């Protein structure tokens, strides 16, 4: 059994309630920080822990915190990103729904470190019932003196508010989120200035993912060095993975970053193998934006090593033969699935979610969707594959925010690894309407060149 630091208590009956959470050791990190540590010491522990942002980019959290500008007399804000809209990702929801006080506790401790007296949770609008759960937890924390004025006699004041979005993936991008929190359309801002200098209402702001802030609790309780002992290399601590698609046991798992991808998919502790006796064909290991890999490259890197569930190993081989940890949204496709159709649904998603500010993203996502639909419907031409490749290249790197890249990468990876499936769709258009391409060679052992 791997170590669990976030969800170890999530199954306890009524852990959603303050009394139970507190009895189980909750809010100790707030007591420790506010009574025995300075704000900088809290940040120092987070640095030592090696914690990396769990929202997708994996940026070191302690470093992000130390960039926060601290001009005299200007308020600073902590904003928790609970927009969770990347297809395949549903881990933050699980955490907030089942153990909401862990997020509230992490926010209080983090707010103390950052000197933020007012913190927001920006939650996707569709998670409407979770707003009630969070507001109840906030009220309970307040009734018990963990929020409000002069918390635990430390002189530190803190309030937490929940703001609902209204349906827009782009509001997960941190500057679009801030625009939305200011009551505007979710159009990403041009950076710099970064939120650490000019964020919410032009004040210095830290935006962190739900899971990142929750991880601050065990880091402060056990110490940054202890936390860093879990995992491999720069992948420290535990990570929530939301697993879905064609596996036996879909759901949210907390892993310590020491297991292999193979173990994660096939062991009964996690996904329990491929559903319905089918075979593994492909997987998107880190949310819809990261490259899809065929079964062989998923389980084994191009160097012939076992691929591990760590930031480094998932990215091994770069985009040529690797992928990314991303948001931890683990999407599994079995041998009955069609990569063209799956890629089409993702292209449609990005076209729908583009905010429309940059023409390469606004127009390019629409073209990719149309071309993929044509191929899927048996109306594709061979030249369409190169055209798709060309469009995604022209989007990548040419836009204000990374949504453009996020739309380009899934299409690029699908063509890179599944080109023959696309070609078959075009050359065997009629047949492709009746059946799917199947597993073919996608799980064959890869030939590893012998190095001299």
């Amino acid at each position, binding site marked *: 059994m791997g170590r669990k630091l976030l969800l170890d208590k999530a199954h306890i009956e009524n852990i959603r309630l303050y009394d139970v959470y507190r009895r189980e050791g909750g809010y100790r990190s707030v007591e420790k920080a506010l009574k025995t540590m300075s704000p900088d010491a809290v940040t120092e522990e987070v640095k030592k822990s090696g914690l990396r942002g769990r929202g997708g980019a994996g940026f070191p959290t302690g470093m992000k915190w130390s960039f926060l500008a601290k001009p005299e007399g200007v*308020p600073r804000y902590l904003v928790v990103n609970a927009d*969770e*809209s*990347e*297809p*395949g*990702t*549903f881990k933050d*929801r699980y955490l907030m729904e089942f153990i909401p006080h862990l997020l509230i506790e992490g926010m209080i401790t983090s707010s103390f470190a950052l000197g933020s007296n*007012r913190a*927001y949770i920006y939650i*996707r*609008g*569709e*998670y*409407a*019932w979770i707003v009630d759960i969070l507001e109840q937890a906030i009220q309970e924390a307040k009734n018990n003196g963990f929020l409000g004025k002069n918390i635990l006699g430390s002189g530190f004041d803190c309030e937490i*508010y929940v*703001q*609902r*979005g*209204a*349906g*827009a*993936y782009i509001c997960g991008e941190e500057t679009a989120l801030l625009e*939305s*929190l*200011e*009551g*505007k*359309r*979710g159009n990403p801002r041009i950076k710099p200035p970064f939120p650490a200098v000019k964020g919410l*209402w032009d004040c210095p702001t830290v935006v962190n993912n739900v899971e990142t802030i929750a991880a601050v609790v065990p880091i402060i309780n056990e110490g940054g060095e202890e936390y860093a002992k879990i995992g491999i290399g720069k992948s420290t601590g535990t990570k929530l993975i*939301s*697993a*879905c*698609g*064609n596996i036996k046991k*879909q*759901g*949210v798992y907390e892993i310590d970053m020491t297991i292999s991808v193979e173990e994660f998919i096939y062991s009964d502790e996690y996904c329990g193998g491929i559903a319905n006796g089918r075979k593994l064909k492909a997987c*998107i290991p880190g949310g*819809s934006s990261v490259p899809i890999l065929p079964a062989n490259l998923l389980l084994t890197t191009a160097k012939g090593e076992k691929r591990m569930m760590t930031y480094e190993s998932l990215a091994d081989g770069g985009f040529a033969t690797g992928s990314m940890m991303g948001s931890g*949204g683990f*999407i599994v*496709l079995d041998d009955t*699935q069609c990569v063209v*159709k*799956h890629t089409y*649904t*993702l292209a*449609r*998603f990005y076209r*729908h*979610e583009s*905010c429309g500010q940059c023409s390469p993203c606004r127009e390019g996502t629409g073209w990719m969707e149309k071309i993929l639909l044509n191929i899927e419907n048996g109306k594709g031409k061979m030249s369409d594959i190169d055209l798709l490749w060309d469009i995604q290249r022209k989007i990548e790197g040419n836009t204000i925010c990374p949504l453009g890249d996020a739309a380009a990468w899934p299409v690029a990876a699908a063509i890179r690894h599944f080109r023959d499936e696309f070609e078959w769709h075009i050359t065997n258009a009629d047949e492709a309407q009746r059946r799917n391409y199947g597993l073919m060679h996608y799980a064959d052992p890869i030939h590893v060149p012998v190095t001299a």
Partner: protein
Amino acid sequence: MMKFSDDKLKEVQRIINFYPDGKQKSAVIPVLHLAQQEFGGWLSTETMDYVASLLKLAPIEVYEVATFYSMYNLKPVGKYMFEVCQTGPCMLNGSDDIVKYIYDKLGIKPGETSADGLFTLKTVECLGACGYAPMMQMGKNYREHLTKEKVDAIINECRNEATAIKN
């Protein structure tokens, strides 16, 4: 004249208090949710103008927001809205069959409302329930692990509720 009940006006004030003085523009998204829920499930121009007056905003500031976010309905919708997710992970688990089954049962395609005004079908993109697919949102809650039988039960539940309200 359109107006929130006293209770809802209190809720509006509670939301405005989330933000520092003078930043009540931030309340527009939550207040639009409240208005949509209170005034017939969609946002008419009149509703948006009312929200603008409550928050002391120019109407255009409210229209801009209302037209950006996909949860706001800018046209009337049925009493029950079935918002079926169709993105990759849900597709892998048969969301297309659910959309088709709803069409077979109610005769409505995505974007359409049934003649009795009870049901609107909408296809939506990933709702963060990918591990519990296929799924749909109905009002404030999610209906997950959908099957044909479950869809039947949900339709009956809605019809019964609507009849009960009428009587």
